[in-house]
């Protein structure tokens, strides 16, 4: 069986390898599922072959706010080809990703709260029959006053969307840390400014789809869906359908982008499952782009009032901020969003005193939710804009003012967030040098400018949404007779490359080639539970669990080899494809080590787990869990723009971005993620916004929802800064979100450098920019006429 004479069972000569070991971690590694995607072999939910599936279709409310008096489905049920018609009455419980805010039914019960809210659904043999059935359903909805802005919903006489929430405030946050008044008193300059941000959506390319199969005989349900959170979906299906979770299986196939749209279970997933159960078969529901905008869960329209105190040195002495978010009709992640906004607002810098008030407001618009950079993007724009404005007023360089506010780790922020590594200084140094900042900022020809901003983000929320006391991440490894290692993980690869990263991590620990490793992910019948792909938690948490699983497998294999070689484990040198007795040439091939281990126990299955250490889980005040993380990523970026002052058109010429990812396990993927984050920030900053006409989305398509095209895409130079976080897997931290937040403020700071106008609203669409330019001209003309008696407040676009 062996190539070598090993009759004594005590090993054989193993040649020492001349070449230095090749590391799997830190190597630029193409995604292990990349070939399937670029060749079109990858199958997404809507592509999966299920045979004769029924067609699921959803009827949506035409009314923005109203009481459901009746839903008559009798005519629809009687139509040919119709196999099931369901309403809210067919569900056992409402849902909501946050356990204390479960106030949404998959199909509305009692009330509808936004135009487009699902109210009934059908399963039929073909699309025509399904459409006919929808048309035959009669809705009796008595309208109530509807509110499409946070201000209207907060009005004194406003009807409550949800009975328990007075003033339509879903969550009010009131936090104060340190002596804020003393902080402002100690400042040499205090400035206050208001900002406004349009609502934005994810724009993920893959449309929503779900397939549910119900086996009547045994009462089992299998759901395939586009989710980022298969485990939360599993739990939610059990609640909403009143099923035992053990009868449910959830599979996440290839997913074409998430960005947060799919980090909570979505109504169509529960609807499809309920239709399958009602029809006793397989139902496939494919949604349109418009449906996606009605399902929404994007970044809320936000108003911010921010006040900063600053010393002449640039040091920040105090922060006072109020944020109002138009949350839409249901809870979703809303309370987390409003808490993130406050928690991450200032924690990028060592700020001694902070007051934060936040209001998450219920309105009759599609529910908002988590979107890449969750909660912190608009707040970052306000903060980095005001910082820039005050720096210029104090005649400080915008980079210098950020250097005047640097954290030295380990550090605990005033809101009890733990910082163990901090790459901002290195990030600033690089962008300053690479962009030619010193020679060019403030010195470019009119219409051309440079702007800078810093940002940060969590590497996973330190406490999971569903707190169960279990480890935060579990990875199983299976090793069998074939010598292949199978990683079994619940981690959702949604294009960010987590499966590749886990394979690299296991390969690194075991010193094995990637070819020996296979990843099976996100099938609840096979893989351990995972909380999902959100808050940039996967690399950090699941990566750490994978390291521990691989270490355990290595321990088992080394022990087996030691026994066979008749030495102590400590004497075995592990080199992956070989191992040997230290100081000798006597050893075993990997296959022999595996065979020896299997001879004792049969197929090997080992487990690794990881949890965030308690000191990283935040303080004890209300809402303290949000923002807490085991490791913060950091970034700085410089954006160069040109502005056409006659048309208001802004062109991004170049971006230099440095991102502190701790350690780049896969530099190729990290660079792509950083570029993607910058690019998505650019979309929000330049042109993306939703809009409503009496609660109907005005831009529910990719023509009017203006995601940038390749024409707008600038060169994005990425520098990876490695600060080696003590808790991260091999020192790694998140890389998919943190660089997003910096783009919008760097852009508007650059616009200010170019034309002297500071936009206090986003997006910087040409009409807004032109209006800001004209407003400034009007002010200047008036000032010239009246003799410079007008205030010098910055222009708000």
């Amino acid at each position, binding site marked *: 069986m062996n190539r070598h004479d090993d009759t004594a069972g005590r090993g054989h000569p193993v040649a020492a390898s001349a070449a230095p070991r090749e590391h799997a971690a830190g190597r630029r590694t193409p995604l292990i599922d990349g070939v399937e995607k670029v060749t079109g072999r990858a199958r997404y939910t809507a592509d999966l072959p299920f045979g004769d599936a029924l067609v699921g279709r959803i009827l949506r409310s035409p009314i923005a706010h109203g009481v459901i008096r009746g839903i008559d489905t009798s005519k629809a049920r009687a139509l040919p080809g119709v196999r099931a018609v369901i309403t809210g009455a067919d569900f056992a419980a409402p849902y909501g990703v946050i356990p204390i805010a479960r106030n949404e039914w998959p199909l509305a019960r009692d009330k509808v709260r936004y135009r487009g809210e699902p109210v009934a659904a059908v399963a039929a043999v073909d699309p025509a029959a399904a459409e006919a059935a929808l048309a035959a359903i009669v809705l009796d909805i008595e309208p109530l006053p509807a509110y499409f802005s946070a201000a209207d919903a907060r009005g004194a006489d406003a009807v409550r969307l949800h009975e328990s929430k007075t003033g339509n405030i879903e969550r009010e946050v009131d936090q104060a840390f340190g002596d804020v008044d003393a902080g402002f008193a100690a400042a040499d300059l205090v400035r206050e400014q208001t900002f406004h941000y349009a609502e934005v959506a994810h724009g993920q390319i893959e449309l929503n789809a779900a397939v549910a199969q119900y086996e009547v005989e045994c009462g089992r349900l299998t759901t395939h869906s586009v989710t980022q959170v298969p485990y939360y979906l599993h739990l939610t299906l059990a609640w909403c359908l009143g099923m035992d979770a053990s009868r449910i299986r959830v599979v996440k196939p290839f997913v074409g982008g998430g960005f947060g749209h799919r980090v909570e279970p979505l109504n169509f997933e529960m609807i499809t499952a309920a239709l399958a159960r009602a029809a006793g078969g397989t139902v496939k529901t494919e949604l349109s782009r*418009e449906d996606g905008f009605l399902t929404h869960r994007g970044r809320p329209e936000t108003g911010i009032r921010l006040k900063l105190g600053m010393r002449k040195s640039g040091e920040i002495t105090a922060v006072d901020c109020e944020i109002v978010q138009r949350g839409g009709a249901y809870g979703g992640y809303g309370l987390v969003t409003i808490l993130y906004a406050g928690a991450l607002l200032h924690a990028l810098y060592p700020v001694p005193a902070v007051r934060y008030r936040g209001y998450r407001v219920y309105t009759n618009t599609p529910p908002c939710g988590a979107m890449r950079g969750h909660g912190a993007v608009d707040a970052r724009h306000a903060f980095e804009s005001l910082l820039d404005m005050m720096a210029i007023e104090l005649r400080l360089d915008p980079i210098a003012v950020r250097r005047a506010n640097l954290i030295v780790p380990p550090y605990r922020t005033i809101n009890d967030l733990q910082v163990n590594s901090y790459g901002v200084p290195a990030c600033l140094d690089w962008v300053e040098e690479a962009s030619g900042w010193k020679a060019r900022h403030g010195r470019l020809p009119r219409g051309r400018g440079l702007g800078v901003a810093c940002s940060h983000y969590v590497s996973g929320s330190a406490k999971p949404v569903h707190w169960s006391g279990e480890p935060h991440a579990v990875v199983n490894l299976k090793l069998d007779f074939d010598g292949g290692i199978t990683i079994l993980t619940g981690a959702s690869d949604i294009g960010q490359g987590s499966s590749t990263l886990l394979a690299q991590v296991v390969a690194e620990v075991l010193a094995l080639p990637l070819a020996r490793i296979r990843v099976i992910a996100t099938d609840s019948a096979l893989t351990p539970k995972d909380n999902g792909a959100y808050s940039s938690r996967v690399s950090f948490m699941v990566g750490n669990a994978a390291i521990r699983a691989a270490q355990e497998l290595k321990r088992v294999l080394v022990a087996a080899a030691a026994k066979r070689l008749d030495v102590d484990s400590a004497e075995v040198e592990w080199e992956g494809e070989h191992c040997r007795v230290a100081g000798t040439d006597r050893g075993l091939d990997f296959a022999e080590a595996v065979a020896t281990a299997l001879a004792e126990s049969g197929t090997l299955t080992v487990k690794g787990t990881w949890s965030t250490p308690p000191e990283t889980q935040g303080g004890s005040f209300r809402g303290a869990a949000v923002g807490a993380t085991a490791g913060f990523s950091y970034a700085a970026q410089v954006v160069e723009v040109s502005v056409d002052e*006659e*048309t*208001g058109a802004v062109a991004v010429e170049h971006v230099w971005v440095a991102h502190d990812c701790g350690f780049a396990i896969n530099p190729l993927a990290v660079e792509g993620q950083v570029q993607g984050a910058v690019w998505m920030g650019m979309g929000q900053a330049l042109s993306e916004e939703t809009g409503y*006409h009496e609660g109907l989305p005005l831009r529910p398509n990719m023509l009017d929802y*203006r995601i940038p095209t390749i*024409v707008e895409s600038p060169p994005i130079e990425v520098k990876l800064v490695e600060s080696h976080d003590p808790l991260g897997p091999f020192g790694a931290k998140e890389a998919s979100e943190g660089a997003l937040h910096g783009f919008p403020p760097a852009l508007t700071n650059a616009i200010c450098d170019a034309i002297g106008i500071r936009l206090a609203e986003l997006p910087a669409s040409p*009409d807004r920019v*032109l209006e800001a330019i004209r407003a400034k001209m009007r002010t200047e003309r008036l000032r010239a006429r009246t003799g410079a008696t007008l205030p010098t407040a910055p222009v708000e676009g």
Partner: protein
Amino acid sequence: MECMPDFELKRPTSIAEVAAILAETPTARLLAGGTDLVPRMRRGIEHPALLVDITAVLGFADIEVADGGLALGAGVTLSTLAADPRIARACAALAEAARTVAGPGLRSAATLGGNLCLDTRCVFYNQSAWWRATNGNCMKLGGDVCHVAPQGKHCHAAFAGDLAPALLALDADVELVARGGARRVPLAGLYRDDGAAHLTLACDEVLTRVFVSESSASLASGYRKARARGAIDFPLAGVACALALRGTALSALRIALTGTNSRPIVLEGTDAFIGRPVDDEMLGALRKLVQRQASPMRTTVTSADYRRQVAAVLAQRLVRELAAERLRHASAS
């Protein structure tokens, strides 16, 4: 998902056959690139029982040089218009306009005739059937209110084709064929100021060719388009211009706009600039002229005021650039 309704498809190979089919079935719709019609069918805006695919009609995509001018088949694709050196030489504005439409994929399918006959657009109209019904439908389709101007009696949907202003600036003619015969009319005659029925084309007529005369082909021309993104988007406003100079003074000037009205318009009053140099005073007057005649309404998600302002800026820029280019040419030769 928005499914295509059922339809019958015919694929004739001659214009005579096309005209015969249209005479017999006036509700039939012509299909060339399908880039405008198919999305409307998917959205339930149109459900023609019969589609007539005209891409197999012989000679339909020909470009001919005749009498020093050009005769362009209605089936010429936008990517051909954008790349063909004869077009670039004789009608730069047309080539530039073609290059700004949508993206490369759509341009390879979309045609000259289709772009000239593009349906008018409105944010209250280019939506799904559910959306339109929920909003109470509109004057352009199935309703009696124009949500853009609810007090008014007109549909304000805006024409947003990029090629029409280029060809209007070049004073082009179009050939329209029906079973009973052909007629040749100035392109401006193809349009009327009604967002709900902006084409004068009869339902049994097919637009077959576009003619640009030798004198137009000798003009300097160009097209400028305002939009939020550098690709994909329809024009928020588009401006085409064709001009000639005698010395430093304007000897010919035609300007046309798109995206701002229910039809593409030829700017009126430009005759007053003939004999004058292109200077700040002239450009200031031009700006006012554009601002007066462009009458964008709330048909797009971008404000009407911006579209009016930017149309004027683009017109000024284009005239200045074309004049400067002509002067450079003149001094070089």
